[in-house]
Structures are given as C-alpha cells and as structure tokens.
C-alpha cells in the first residue's frame, strides 16, 4: 500500500479543519423586529436545567421565570416562540452562529460577556450563594476549607468560589456541566456544599441524610439581561422598552413571587 508523505497528510487535514471552521461560521446577521415578524417566529435560547428560571414540568414542557418572559416576548411581537435549549457554555455561541435571535437564560450581565454580546436592561436579579445541609456550620469561605464544593462550570458562582479557593487553600472546587448535576452530586454526597442561586433551597429535596438545605452566605448579587448580537441595536432597544413596560405594570414582580417566593429586587438600569 503506497503511503502519502506525512507532511501532505497533516497539511491536508489542517486545511480541511480550517475550511470547516471558516465556512461553518455563517456571518452574524443583524436581526430586527420586522424581520422576526415577517419570518413568523422568534427563536429564543433557554436553559431547562436551572430551576426556577428554566425547568421542565410534568409533561416535559419548558416552564419557569425565563420561559414566561420568553412567551411574553412572543406575545408582544405577535409571533410564536421557538425554544432552543442551550447549556451555560453554549449561550454565547448560539447567538454568534445565528442559531437564535436572543438568549433568555439566567444570563448575568458582565463586562467580559458584553465584549461578545449586547445585554438588555435587567429583567430579574439574583444572588449567588453557598448552599449546604443544615448540619454544616458555614459562615464564610474560611469554613469551606477541607470541603468539596460543587459549582456549575462558568457561572458567577464558579468565578467567585474559585477566587475564594485561591485565597483559602484547602477548598476543593468541583466543576460540573449543569445545575442538575450539582444537585445530583449533593444528593449522593459527592460534594459537601454547592454554589447556586438564592432560590436553591426551594427546589432541592432533602440531602443524603434527610436534612434540609439552607443558604449559608451570599457571594454576590447578579442581574439577568436578555442577550442579543452586538449588531442588533434595533432589537435591543425594543427589548429594553418591553422590559420597562413589564416592570411598570407589575408583571415581572408577579413572576418573581410565583417562581422565587420573593418580590422582584430593585433592578438598576443602564
């Protein structure tokens, strides 16, 4: 069997890889509300693994705070909503590759993310907290030394707890792909504490020892915005107007009471 010179093989493979990347990346298109309306549907990225913002109900339909906001977007535009489920790491790529028009998925507003996407004004607020069973006495990061702490990869809790682990050596951070995995790890005792949202104890069942969970200490407060591509200013302005009216007529507060058992926190605007 004749063999191709190895240099050519490697060059050919690298060329193929480059071609796939170059042609696979469709140019990011601006999308306006008119285009969405004439297209006949709005495509929204959601997360279904993080209660109470995105989850599935008994009949496996998406439900939650974010999903209701998404449905209200569709209603205001007068078109049906097509949901695309993404994981936390997949939110920005789904926008940049034109798979979705917007992202409504516990998308915390940070300047680093704003380099890649554009955020609307906040429609919800959340604190990142540390949760653990009642029997553990944890008041601050020093009490986490020697414990295994689970976080969802790339979330605000990941960044904050990793920074705390660097300041207090001995905290072991375990990074999972989604919130469902860390709750599973908590229930099977693979981690002692976890980073999550301040609604976490509402949706966690009992721990492996049958105890309730409780909020130990707050890491930071975040605000969620709707993400769109940077070159869609018209859509961004419409979304800001939409969120503003939802805040004024009390709809957002109702959703917050329904899903978080707490009123809507004060939402800054920019």
């Amino acid at each position, binding site marked *: 069997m004749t063999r191709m010179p190895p240099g050519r093989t490697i060059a050919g493979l690298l060329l193929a890889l480059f071609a796939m990347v170059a042609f696979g990346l469709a140019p990011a298109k601006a999308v306006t509300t008119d285009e969405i309306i004439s297209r006949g549907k709005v495509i929204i990225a959601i997360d279904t693994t993080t209660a109470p913002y995105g989850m599935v109900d008994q009949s496996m339909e998406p439900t939650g705070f974010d999903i209701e906001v998404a449905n209200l977007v569709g209603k205001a535009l007068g078109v049906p909503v097509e949901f695309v489920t993404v994981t936390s*790491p997949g939110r920005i790529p789904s926008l940049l590759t034109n798979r979705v028009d917007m992202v409504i998925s516990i998308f915390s507003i940070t300047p680093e993310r704003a380099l*890649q996407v554009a955020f609307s004004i906040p429609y919800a607020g959340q604190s990142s907290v540390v949760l653990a069973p009642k029997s553990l006495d944890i008041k601050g990061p020093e009490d986490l030394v020697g414990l295994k702490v689970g976080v969802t990869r*790339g979330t605000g809790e990941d960044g904050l707890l990793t920074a705390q682990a660097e300041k207090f050596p001995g905290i072991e951070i*375990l*990074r999972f792909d989604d919130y469902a995995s860390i709750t599973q790890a908590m229930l099977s005792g693979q981690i002692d504490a976890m980073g999550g949202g301040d609604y976490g104890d509402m949706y966690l069942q009992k721990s492996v020892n049958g105890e309730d969970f409780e909020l130990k200490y707050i890491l930071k407060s975040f605000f969620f915005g709707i993400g769109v591509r940077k070159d869609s200013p018209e859509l961004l302005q419409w979304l800001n107007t939409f969120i503003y009216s939802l805040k004024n007529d009390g709809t957002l507060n109702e959703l917050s009471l329904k899903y978080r058992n707490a009123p809507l926190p004060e939402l800054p605007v920019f």
Partner: protein
Amino acid sequence: MDYVFHFGPILDRWPLLLWGLYRTLELSIISMVFGLVIGIAGAVAKVFGPRPVRAVASAYVEIIRNTPLLIQLFFIYFTLPFVGLRLSSNVAAIVALSIHLGAYVTEIIRAGIESVPAGQIEAGKALGLSGRQIIRFVVLTPAIRAVYPALGAQFILQLLGSSIVSAIAAEELTAVANNLAMQTFRNFEIYIVVAVMYFVAVQVFSALFRWSGRKLFRWKV
C-alpha cells in the same frame, strides 16, 4: 466572515492547557493499562473458561458495549454512593474508563485468540508446556500481534473519549477548555487550539504504539 479571532488570551494560558493535556494522558494511559489487563482476562475467560465464567464475561461485554460511556460514568459516580460506594471524581473516571475499555479489548483479543490455529495448542501440549505457558507464549503472543493495530485504534478512541469525564467534575484537557471558554468567551479560538492539541497527542501516541509493536513482536512466525 465577521468574527475576529483573538488567539492571544488562549495562548497566554498555555501552562493550564499543558496541565490539561497531561491529565488527559494520565487518565488515558492508566485506564489503558487496566483495560488491557481486564481485556486479556476477559478474552481468556471467554475462550478457555468453563461455562459459568464464559457467561459472566459475555454479560459484562454485552452490557458495557451496549450502553454509552457517559451513562456508565454517571452510574459509577452518582448512583453507586446510594449503595455505599462513594468514589472521587478522579477514581470514578479511571474505573469507568477502564471497565469501558476492558469490554472492547476483550472482544478484540478474543478475535486474535481465535485466529491462532488449534494445532498450535496441541503442539504446545506435545512439547510439554504447562497450561499457563501455552496461554502466554502459544496463544496470547501471536493473538496480540495479530490484532495489534486494532488495539491501537481502540486506544486512540480511549484517549479521545476521555474528554467526557468533565461531566463528573474530573479535570482534563476538555474540562480546561470549557473552563477557559467560560472565562474568556473565546469559544472558537479555544476549541481550535484544543483540537490541534488532541491531534498532535494522538499522532505522537500512534507513532509510539507502532514503534513499541515493532520492538515487542520482532519475530514474525
């Protein structure tokens, strides 16, 4: 194409990427060693063992080969604690990877064993070799030489397949890539760099595997 590539932030973090590659190789090589041992034992059990042993080996192979590695990983890490066996991420990853590879290696080596003519075994007995010597020198050595390329291919799949253990919080190159993606949001650049790293790792591994094959099986029968 509108996207502007910035490789700088990624290449700045090369120590972390190298550590991830080291962890991938560590997980892969340890599970290859265990997988090979399990595979040889399984193949010998399936060909030469008594009926109940053959049945157990067959059940093991069928169950492992017909379920996804990710499910096996979740089972070992999340479900076993409920029956009392709690393994750390790292240990669970190695256990799952080894058991997974063992099933495939069993079938590969079994094919190799069956390719050894029965006359060889009879000749071995006629020469007065013990059972163990026959299995080692007359059966396994030609068998493994015959299926060496297939073993190499399976080991390469194992190296690449180790990328999913981030699902149970075990860190290796893909987990490092995902972490970096979340810090810098430069997904395209990161995954291109990591793909190239895997590619180079596999090329080096294949070359070493072929070289060691030439050294081990110098004599063609």
